[in-house]
């Protein structure tokens, strides 16, 4: 059964290779191959899952070693995979949502001439993401980590002829690289400390290391997580990443890849549990991003960017939960899964809307679409209800648990964190309601596109609707299913550990407060956008709104602090290299040339001058001979 694990990865990898190398011959049906292979991978995942359920708790985790990858004396990196409860959750999420999105893309990308490549990249992404979650050591995880980064780069920049897409892709990759820096330093620290970087040995030896070292490793891992999961301060790439095709945004930048940071922190729980300072940093990052993303989401008029802000914010929840320690790991993962469903559903819905509206993304140019796209509308509403935490839907369960866990932190910290989480919930309700109102309700504010075509909104083809419907089920019922008898918690506990948090408020009260917050957010949004017609031109807005539209000035900050001095430095060095170093060398050459020009004058051409110098030379020779003799 273990041999299925490599096959799980091999299927999409083979798909990617086949589609990329296969050439134009595969243009007509390549996308179906890719979808089939994704589904095959998903099937393998399900088989493995049920196989795992069939064993008792102690024997659920299995590893399979393929071959030794980089063996250099003490440095032993293997290509070896570990499938445990945490991994299988991710495997199912990735392959499941991945398959659905493959299917969706068949319809969405039907008219793109480079469709074959798109599917190749999607398959590549699946393979890399599976490597990421199945690796049994950090170095192999790093391969998957950068592999998804590559896939993300290729897919964000899929429409390369658009300069904005190409720039966004590059930006995503480079910001991620900064995060990867953290991961590589963490691996190096582990190797220097433990002589290994495989999960099991490191976690079992973690207790021996000093807290300082563990904190350093933890902070480096956090940096990596920040990069991949778009957390403050490395969040700036996610909004731009929406330049990619919408299925990509749904799969990579909402459901799976961006949650890799949460996976990393949860996976490294053994390290974080022993490094409280690092945990605090994680919590702070999570809480800040939670609010940051939510505020950005409120101001964006671009439907995908609003959803991207939301993604950032929701991942902030997960990171915060993961930072809380064993109290929160399981809930972080649970929220991750439910978020995967409803956010993917929301993005697919957004994609469907764009598909019907000539790829218009500005919500101010939508309005009243519910009549034209009923399927899209209802699936979107399901996702909407789930994300705002409408009672007894997926988001309600997972988010409430996180708020509880935050409050359970205790003391002022607990109140602050809980307060942030509740505030976040209210803001989430506000911006999501705004999205829904602007898109599906109100007047038609449709605008002709650049070529003057009036939009004719229509429902999307079946291949797009079916995935949305399937995801709707996940959005509606996954949370409830997981919470039924704490099944999810019990399943994950052997990996992540769990301890009951002691919240100052009981669960019911928390739920009630959260629901009230949610209702307040929805109400405020309705007051602002539901009652009165929405202007097509965005109003100037307050200072905060304007800042939020610019991603709270993150890009400006980066530009001023990093990009501009960086390029100035590069320019200075280029100058220094040609004028300084090379100038020195050339100057030396010129000096020697000048000197020989002077010396050349000694060569007067007069025989007698030469004779004199010979005479002088003889003199010196005789003198030195005599001198040597006398010495």
């Amino acid at each position, binding site marked *: 059964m273990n041999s299925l694990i490599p096959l799980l990865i091999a299927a999409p990898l083979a798909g990617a290779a086949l589609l990329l190398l296969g050439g134009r011959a595969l243009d007509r049906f390549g996308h179906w191959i890719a979808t089939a292979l994704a589904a095959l991978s998903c099937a393998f995942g399900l088989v493995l899952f049920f196989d795992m359920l069939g064993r008792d708790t102690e024997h659920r985790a299995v590893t399979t070693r393929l071959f030794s990858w980089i*063996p250099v004396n003490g440095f032993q990196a293997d290509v070896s995979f570990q499938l445990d409860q945490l991994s299988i959750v991710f495997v199912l999420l990735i392959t499941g949502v991945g398959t659905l999105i493959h299917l969706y893309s068949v319809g969405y990308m039907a008219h793109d001439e480079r469709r074959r490549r798109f599917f190749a990249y999607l398959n590549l992404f699946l393979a890399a993401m599976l490597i990421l979650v199945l690796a049994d050591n950090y170095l192999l995880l790093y391969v998957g980590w950068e592999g998804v980064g590559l896939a993300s780069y290729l897919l964000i920049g899929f429409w390369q002829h658009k300069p904005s897409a190409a720039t966004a892709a590059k930006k995503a990759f480079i910001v991620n690289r900064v995060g990867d820096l953290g991961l590589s330093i963490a691996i190096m620290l582990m*190797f220097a400390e*433990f002589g290994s970087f495989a999960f099991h040995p490191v976690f079992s030896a973690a207790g021996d290391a000093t807290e300082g070292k563990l904190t350093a490793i933890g902070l480096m891992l956090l940096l990596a997580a920040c990069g991949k999961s778009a957390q403050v301060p490395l969040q700036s790439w996610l909004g731009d990443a929406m330049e990619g095709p919408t299925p990509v945004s749904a799969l990579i930048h909402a459901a799976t890849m961006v949650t890799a940071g949460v996976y990393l922190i949860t996976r490294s729980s053994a390290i974080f549990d022993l490094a409280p300072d690092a945990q605090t940093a994680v919590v702070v990052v999570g809480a800040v991003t939670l609010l940051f993303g939510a505020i950005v989401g409120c101001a964006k008029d671009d439907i995908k960017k609003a959803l991207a802000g939301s993604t950032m914010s929701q991942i902030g929840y997960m990171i915060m939960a993961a930072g809380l320690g064993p109290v929160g790991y399981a809930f972080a993962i649970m929220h991750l899964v439910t978020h995967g469903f409803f956010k993917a559903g929301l993005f697919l819905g957004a994609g469907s809307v764009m598909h019907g509206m000539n790829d218009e993304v500005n919500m101010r140019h939508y309005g009243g679409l519910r009549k034209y796209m009923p399927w899209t509308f209802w699936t979107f509403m399901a996702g909407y209800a789930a994300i705002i935490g409408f009672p007894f839907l997926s988001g309600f369960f997972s988010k409430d648990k996180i708020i509880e866990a935050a409050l359970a932190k205790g003391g002022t910290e607990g109140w602050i964190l809980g307060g942030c989480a509740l505030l976040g919930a209210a803001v989430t309700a506000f911006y999501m309601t705004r999205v829904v109102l602007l898109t599906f309700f109100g007047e038609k504010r449709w605008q002709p596109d650049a070529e003057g075509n009036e939009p004719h909104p229509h429902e999307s083809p079946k291949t797009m609707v079916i995935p949305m419907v399937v995801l709707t089920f996940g959005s509606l019922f996954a949370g409830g299913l997981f919470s039924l008898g704490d099944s999810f918690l019990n399943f994950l506990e052997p990996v992540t550990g769990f301890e009951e948090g002691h919240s100052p408020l009981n669960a019911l009260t928390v739920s009630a407060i959260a629901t009230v917050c949610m209702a307040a957010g929805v109400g405020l949004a309705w007051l602002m956008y539901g009652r009165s017609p929405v202007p097509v031109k965005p109003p100037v807005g307050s200072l905060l709104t304007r800042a939020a539209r610019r991603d709270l000035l993150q890009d400006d900050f980066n530009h001023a602090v990093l990009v501009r001095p960086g390029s100035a430095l590069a320019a200075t060095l280029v100058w220094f290299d040609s004028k300084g170093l090379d100038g020195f060398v050339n100057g030396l050459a010129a000096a020697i040339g000048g000197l020989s020009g002077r010396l050349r004058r000694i060569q007067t051409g007069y025989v007698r001058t030469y004779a004199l110098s010979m005479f002088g030379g003889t003199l010196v020779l005789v003198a030195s001979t005599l001198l040597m003799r006398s010495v």
Partner: protein
Amino acid sequence: MSYLLSATCAVPAVGAVVTAALPAGTGEARRRTTKAVALGFSVATLGLAAAIAASFQPGGARYQLTESYSWIRSFGIDFSLGADGIGTVLALLTAVLVPLVMLAGWHDADPSAPEGTFESKRRTQGFFALILAVEAMVLVSFLATDVFVFYVFFEAMLIPMYFLIGGFGDRAGGPDSARQRSYAAVKFLLYNLLGGLVMLAAVIGLYVVASDQGLATFSLPALTDAISSGKLVIDPTAQRALFLGFFFAFAVKAPLWPLHTWLPKAMGESTAGTAVLITAVVDKVGTFAMLRFCLGLFPDASKTFAPAILVLSLIGIVYGALVAIGQKDIKRLVAYASISHFGFIIMGIFAMTSQGQSGATLYMVNHGISTAAWMLVAGFLISRRGSRLIADYGGVQKVAPVLAGTFLIGGLATLSLPGLAPFVSEFLVLVGTFTRYPVIGIIATFGIVLAALYSLMLYQRTMTGPVKASVTGMPDLKARELAVVAPLVALTVLLGVYPQPLTRMVDPAVNDTLSQIHRTDPAPAHPVAATTGGEQK
């Protein structure tokens, strides 16, 4: 005594003579014969190099397949060859790259001068003969086990390289390209001659010191054995001076910051194939020699100077990358990227850990392959448009997707994407450095961010965006060009996923080097009992 090594070195040498002697003429058929003959010799060399690798026993003696012929008896100079893991791997790299470089430069030596101006009728013969000559000399350098023989070929290599750089340029040259080329060639020659001169003094000094103590030989194994066993004692001051003499030559060739300024010029002005020869093959002799000669012959001085050299290489890493970011010329960008990479290689060597040195050796191979892919595709691109300026391109992926794709793979390999070969070596170098010098290791890690910057910026500016008018109608890669790039890409992926064939050959040599200098890897602070799934070698 097997003749495999000498045969491997002799085949390209004979090939160079034969190619040069082929009948001149400007006809297409004549030229094709010439090219086919040269390519045939290089492929034969590849076969022989593969035979060396195949018959190499990783567990056996340090130097295998040794041969020795007396040369200058009165100075104890023998023409002796021997293959160790490091040399074998690099010889194989050379043998792989040369046929590809020839294929890539298939038309680089076709008559280019306008009708009526003077141009040699033996241009094609000369070009291919020179490439073969370089190959022969590089192979001898990698396989020589005699310090003097190494020195002679290390220096002699400059002659054909000089003519390759000065005589053959790409289509992108401006009106004064000939002048620029000869400037580049002279600069290349002067820099390297200066280094070689200093080295010659050190070689003689070494001989004097050794013969004073009754060891009148240039044989590397004999000298290193005597030094590591304490039979030959070089006093510290002399050792430092000799070390610097050797190191200077290698640092110029490698090149190490701040001795690098010849490289961008030489790579920028020559053809893409020549640039690959420079950076992927000839420069490797420098780093290879640091590992084999500097460390083995002067262990104490190496340890003394290691921190300073590490700092220089660190500067090189960051500096090269930053300057690459600011470049406007594609080939110069690749050259500066190479400077950054050479920083990594030197850093790995002088970190003096097994990971660092294995990583550095792998890095030499991987950098050779990946840069060759990147540079040759860049060369194809330049040959289509006739400009080296980044600003002249844009949107190429739309018209030539395969070209763009391979260019991207080259770029990704350069930025050390995991799964591609350079990642393995770069990570090993970083880990190896980090375990001994944590701060330097961490700063060097920043190099990976900068690498991503220059590599992706180059791709973005040339390949993406709207199709520029000057690019429209640009043909995609032709079969010949694909035949050049495909093996390189395949190797990049293969060695990234399964580098074991190389590490198995390199590791014993590296361990031997480390034991010669009496260095062991720093032990982890809290070692875990069993490593990952375990199988220790």
